[in-house]
């Protein structure tokens, strides 16, 4: 492997695949390096695929991509110990093609994407771990892999190596992740007959349901739970800030086990066969935690660049879009015959700043901080709204005005009127 490439892409997740595909399709000589036995074998996600980002790269992906179910119903649950209060949005319009989002199984989806990358002309090498970057002064000129004689060189290296971003860290491009900037999520996949899933979730054909959950299930930690329907399986998971796990002394698998046992969740999983347990870190530091994403001979895309919108549960789409913009930046500079220096690659950051990626990241830049400092959203409120619903729905001879007074009193005693107003203000400011 002493060949020289136009570009090396490290990693074969959504960011790496999109970058490699886009550059190969434009005729660049691309090498993609993946440490798993095949592309997808190291990758973990919930997983929801947002069609839009993929459509912009592979418009006809629906023809052969392995998709599980298209989402027609979203439930939001606030859970207390033995109850939940929820909202549901379901629309038959979500069943009008082209569908907007799908559940996917990443090992299958990424494998499909990888074939597209190969078909576009990139050389994809699996079972190869990149150990570090080859530098010439401050410029990245290639990578060193764990293969014998495994150094390989290129004009640019795109780092799409995921949330841990070890390569940029080793090269000193950025520091270690802080425990409060990442969430640890654990997840299981439970197999059930297709018919059971359809009956249990009131769906047919390829329709699917998403349940997002918050409240007591995270034991006061900042985090959420989820349940997604696949064709013949459901995935259930929970994620919380790593700094909270560290403080709480709660182990992630115990948290998941207890969540699965909740009276509202257990019946949805009943009779299923658990076939895999996974864990993954999600970069949730937001806009203020985005590291330097370009330099002499290198770019960062996807999770490695902290590109996750935690509020809207978006990540893989940001990975694809940053991968695409990174690739287009390289293609443009190459076409213009310009060197891939930090100065010229700065247009990558500029293009992202002008796109929905940074605009969304910026819009929610204070959210991680606010949630971290306001635990009442995860403990007191779920409990209060649950008690309020319980009070109003219990017919016991007490008049409704008295019940309303009792609820108001309950809220004010737990959180004070000033606290309630200030919480409302904080949320309004954060989301406005």
């Amino acid at each position, binding site marked *: 492997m002493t060949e020289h490439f136009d570009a090396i892409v490290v990693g074969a997740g959504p960011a790496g695949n999109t970058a490699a595909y886009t550059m190969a399709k434009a005729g660049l000589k691309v090498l993609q390096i993946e*440490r*798993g*036995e095949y592309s*997808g*074998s*190291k*990758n*973990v*996600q919930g*997983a929801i695929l947002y069609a839009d980002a993929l459509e912009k790269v592979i418009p006809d992906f629906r023809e052969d991509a392995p998709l599980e179910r298209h989402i027609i119903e979203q439930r939001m649950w606030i859970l207390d110990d033995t109850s939940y209060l929820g909202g549901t949005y379901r629309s038959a319009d979500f069943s009008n093609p082209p569908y907007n989002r799908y559940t996917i*199984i*990443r*090992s*299958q989806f*990424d494998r499909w994407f990888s074939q597209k990358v190969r078909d576009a002309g990139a050389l994809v090498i*699996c*079972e*190869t*771990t990149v*150990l570090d970057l080859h530098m010439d002064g401050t410029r990245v000129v290639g990578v060193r*892999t*764990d*293969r014998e004689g495994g150094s390989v060189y290129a004009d640019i290296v795109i780092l799409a190596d995921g*949330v*841990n971003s*070890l390569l940029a860290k080793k090269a000193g491009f950025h520091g*270690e*992740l*802080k*425990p409060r900037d*990442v969430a*640890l999520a*654990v997840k*299981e*996949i439970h197999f059930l007959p297709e018919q059971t899933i359809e009956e249990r979730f009131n769906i047919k054909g390829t329709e699917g349901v998403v349940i997002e959950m918050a409240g007591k299930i995270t034991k006061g930690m900042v985090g959420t739970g989820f349940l997604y329907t696949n064709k013949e*399986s459901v995935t259930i998971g929970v994620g919380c800030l*790593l700094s909270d*796990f*560290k403080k709480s*002394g*709660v*182990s*992630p*698998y*115990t948290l998941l*086990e*207890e969540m699965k*046992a909740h009276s509202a969740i257990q019946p949805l999983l009943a009779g299923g066969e*658990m*076939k*895999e*347990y*996974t*864990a*993954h*870190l999600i970069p949730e530091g937001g806009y203020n935690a985005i590291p330097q994403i370009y330099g002499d001979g290198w770019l960062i895309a996807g999770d490695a660049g902290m590109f996750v919108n935690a509020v809207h549960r978006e990540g893989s789409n940001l990975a694809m879009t940053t991968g695409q913009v990174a690739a287009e930046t390289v293609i443009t500079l190459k076409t213009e015959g310009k060197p891939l220096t930090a100065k010229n690659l700065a247009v990558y950051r500029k293009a992202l700043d002008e796109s929905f990626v940074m605009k969304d990241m910026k819009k929610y830049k204070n959210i991680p901080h606010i949630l971290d400092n306001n635990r009442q959203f995860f403990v007191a409120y779920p409990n209060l709204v649950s008690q309020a619903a319980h009070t109003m729905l219990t017919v016991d001879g007490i008049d409704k005005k008295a019940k309303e007074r009792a609820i108001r009193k309950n809220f004010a005693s737990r959180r004070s009127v000033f606290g309630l107003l200030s919480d409302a203000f904080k949320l309004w400011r954060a989301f406005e």
Partner: protein
Amino acid sequence: MKRIEEKLFQNRYRVDTGHAHIEIMNADICAVECEDKACTFCCPAGCYAEDPGGRVTLITDGCLECGTCRIICNEHLNVQWEYPRGGYGILFKFG
């Protein structure tokens, strides 16, 4: 409640025998300086355990390669963390 071993039993691994990809750099730091030993409860695969003598032991066979142990050891920086050699480690069936 299911034990972590039962969960991991469902997973597919290709263990790189003799090449642990994560190491505790200095066992004395865990035993003497680290009070909470967060790795012993934060690791989602339960790879870390505290022995009766207060020392932390690490067996990486069930590792899910998430990175948690490295990041939570932010006070002592006592975890040497690399990805497994190419092709080794966890092989997700579904991911």
